[in-house]
């Protein structure tokens, strides 16, 4: 069956929030179970989103909301472009841009908490972006394709050639998902030194946009994992599920790191694991 990849892109825009929301719901239940609690219903993230959309929003300035719309819009666009057949390396840049809009929205607020969160999110971006560029470039190199569909159709088993990259992915994904110990810019957990970090001054639907964007982001990360397991995409989703479970475990077993550590460790991992992997790839091919 030959389906235009644009269809997949459009489907992503509509289905990714469902996927991300359910993932977040699972996340909360499993987290609760790890803490010996019952936890909320599976659909809790959707209830939260619905409530946030129904609630009034307090405007802190006129620019935050459009920037957040840009954030969620670009996040959706990144996923749509990824599945819709845009060049993979290019989506790495769009992904960074999407994340940047969140930083700008938080940075536009005068609150010290938002601002500190925005700055730390920039550091998160700085810590994770080199990896994503390398990863997508390496996937293109290995598979000889440049689009999502192309990689899936490639006869090369990507994960076999990029084991270091896959390991590094699990590390960097922790940063990107804002899981402890790398939840330096904001987190879902209660009291912390940053209040709610970069979302401190976002209320009502503004917060809902952030939540939505985060769901898209998780879906994009899942799509990235699928790229590694291009010969059997359900396997990719399965690996993503296992990896996500591990993320939750780590999230529940660690305390927050300082941003210096986040930056240093992620750069070290990117340089050693991904860089080493890429080097081996270029030398052996």
């Amino acid at each position: 069956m030959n389906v235009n990849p644009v269809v997949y892109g459009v489907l992503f825009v509509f289905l990714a929030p469902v996927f991300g929301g359910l993932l977040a719901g699972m996340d909360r239940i499993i987290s609760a179970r790890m803490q010996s609690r019952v936890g909320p219903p599976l659909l809790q993230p959707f209830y939260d989103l619905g409530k946030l959309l129904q609630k009034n929003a307090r405007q802190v300035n006129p620019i935050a909301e459009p920037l957040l719309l840009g954030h969620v819009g670009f996040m959706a666009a990144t996923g749509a472009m990824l599945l819709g057949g845009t060049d993979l390396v290019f989506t790495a840049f769009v992904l960074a841009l999407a994340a940047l809009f969140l930083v700008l929205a938080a940075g536009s607020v005068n609150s010290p908490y938002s601002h500190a969160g925005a700055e730390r999110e920039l550091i998160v971006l700085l810590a994770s972006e080199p990896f994503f560029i390398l990863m997508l470039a390496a996937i293109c190199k290995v598979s000889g394709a440049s689009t999502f569909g192309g990689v899936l159709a490639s006869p090369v088993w990507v994960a076999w050639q990029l084991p270091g990259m896959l390991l590094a992915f699990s590390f960097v994904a922790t940063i990107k998902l804002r899981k402890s110990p790398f939840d330096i810019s904001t987190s879902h957990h209660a009291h912390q030194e940053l209040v709610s970090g970069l979302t401190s001054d976002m209320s009502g639907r503004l917060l809902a946009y952030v939540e939505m964007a985060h769901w898209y982001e998780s879906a994009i990360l899942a799509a990235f994992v699928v790229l590694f397991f291009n010969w059997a995409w359900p396997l990719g989703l399965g690996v993503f599920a296992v990896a996500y479970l591990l993320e939750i475990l780590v999230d529940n077993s660690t305390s927050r790191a300082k941003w210096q550590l986040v930056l240093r460790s992620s750069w070290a991992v990117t340089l050693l694991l991904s860089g080493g992997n890429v080097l081996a790839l270029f030398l052996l091919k």
Partner: protein
Amino acid sequence: MSSLIMFLVAFPLAAGALLLAIKNGRLRNVVVVAAAVVVASASVATAVTFGNGEAVFFGLPFDLPASLTLGRLLLVAELAIGAFVIVVSIQNRRILAPLLVGGQIAISLYLEISGKLPEFDLSRLFWFDKLSMIMVLIIGIIGTLICVHSLGYMRDYHRSNPLIKGRRTVFFALLFIFLSAMFGLVTCNYLPAMLVFWEITTLCSFLLIGYTRTKETIGYAFDALNMNMLGGLGFSLAILLLVNGNQTLDLAELTAHAAPAVLMPALALLCLAGLTKSAQMPFSSWLLGAMYAPSPTSALLHSSTMVKAGVFLLLRLSPAIAGSNLGTLVAFTGMLTFLFVSLVAVTEQNTKKVLAYSTIGSLGLIVGCAGLGSPELIWVGMMIIIFHAIAKGLLFLVVGTIENRLYSKDMENFDTLLSRLPKVSALALTGIAGMFIAPFGIVVAKWAAIRAFLEIPGWQGAALLVIMAFGSSLTIFYWGKLLIKVLSMKCVDDAELAIEKRVSRFEWLAEGTLAAGVVAVAASLGVISDKVVGPQALATFAGTSRAFLNIEPAMLVSMIVAVLFLPVLAVWASRQRNWCDEADFYAAGRTTSPDRTMGAALGQTRSVTLRNYYLEGVVNGALVFRAGTVICGAILVALIAVGMVGR
């Protein structure tokens, strides 16, 4: 045919000479604007006339008198430059510059007196192709806009710096003389002639950096002079080697094919010249010192045009050096420079210096592309030249305007800029969007570069990929910080808003036109790629034929949206007033107000200060800069050595 080019070289020179005589400010305004219009129209006319076809060569429109050969003419110019440098150096008790320039003069005199200089086919004196066309348009339009901008800027500059002696006649004369030299440089095909233009731009840069004549700026001016003169000396030595080896001095011929080993020494020296001019490490420090010059100088010389001469030369040399060890070393110099300066830039607080680092980084990318040399990479290099020239030029001008309003270049003081200087902010945002917001400009270029790196076998490809990944992430960090400062908002009163009203109309005109240019270039990206950059990239590597980045209409639309999104948003947001009544931010329950103050203990009110992260404790800027200088210095030594060995 050649008269247009001659006009482009001669007219700004004449205008410069005229401006030297004009003391009246009002008259100067008229002359500068008129000259700018003429130069810009002439450059457009040139581009339209010649830019559509193949590369063309032509000579002078008139015959030289028998007694005045081209060689003598150039020697006279060179002697004049040398004499000037020596006099100035003696006045300021500097020793290095006279030595360097002395070496150049010695070589020129030797060549002229010994008569070894081969006869040059005067009909190939000028070389005009699409790369020249791009450069001519940049110089002719962006350059003249910056001259117009200076009219307003310099007035305010002297108002806010009353201790600096105004020498505006010299300033404007230098700008136009510089334009003249640049036109010559980018159209010239005869290496000794190119060298003369090269040296004139060095000299203009030196004089403009030292404009304020304080001890500090004179020091920086001499730094710039020394490094560029070193490059000039390399250029001279290259000519000497070429002459001694009975090789051609015709740039087009020299770079038509991959160079044989015998040409390598000369090419290495020419690369050295290109690297100094484009302020690559280990020569980056001169460009940072140059930031003490008035902002239009930074925009014109140290961002849009003069530093582009370096990468222009390297792009020209690209087909000759591509694939050789020399080319790889040049590429690594550029890419490592990009990485190191980006790393330093995240620790820098002075906005002009951040822009300077960003400039060096972008030039590093072009150098990397030129060194590796493939049609795709040449495409990327030229794209960056275009986008960088227009967007960075705009940014430097805007920072100059802000500097004259806020009396600060410190990024931290740009806080809540959107509320205080809304229109200026919108212009700044256009520039930043043009520089780096995806999917536009530099980002498209970076992407294409990564695609090209994937084709490079061996560890070089991997290393370049890693460098690119880290370097481009670092650019997000420093642009993000600047954007945070510009986009933050507070409620301001009319008195604060009035500050913006004092921006002169010259500045509005120049910055507005450049901002429109950014949008226009974004909108016509496909046309530029198909009609100009693509064919040129293919022509540079004769015999290759590849398909270029296909730019779809949807992509174009998204580019225009991406470029306009932030500026339009900014203008809209800055007009909102009603939010001021109720907006407050969270400060642990303290009362806060939208003018960025909060209640403190004992009923006091304190203002909130928000500062960016500069990665203290993780990245030591000075150390990184030194490390980069040492590493790239080592590569440079290797580069010269490899060149001399001839491989």
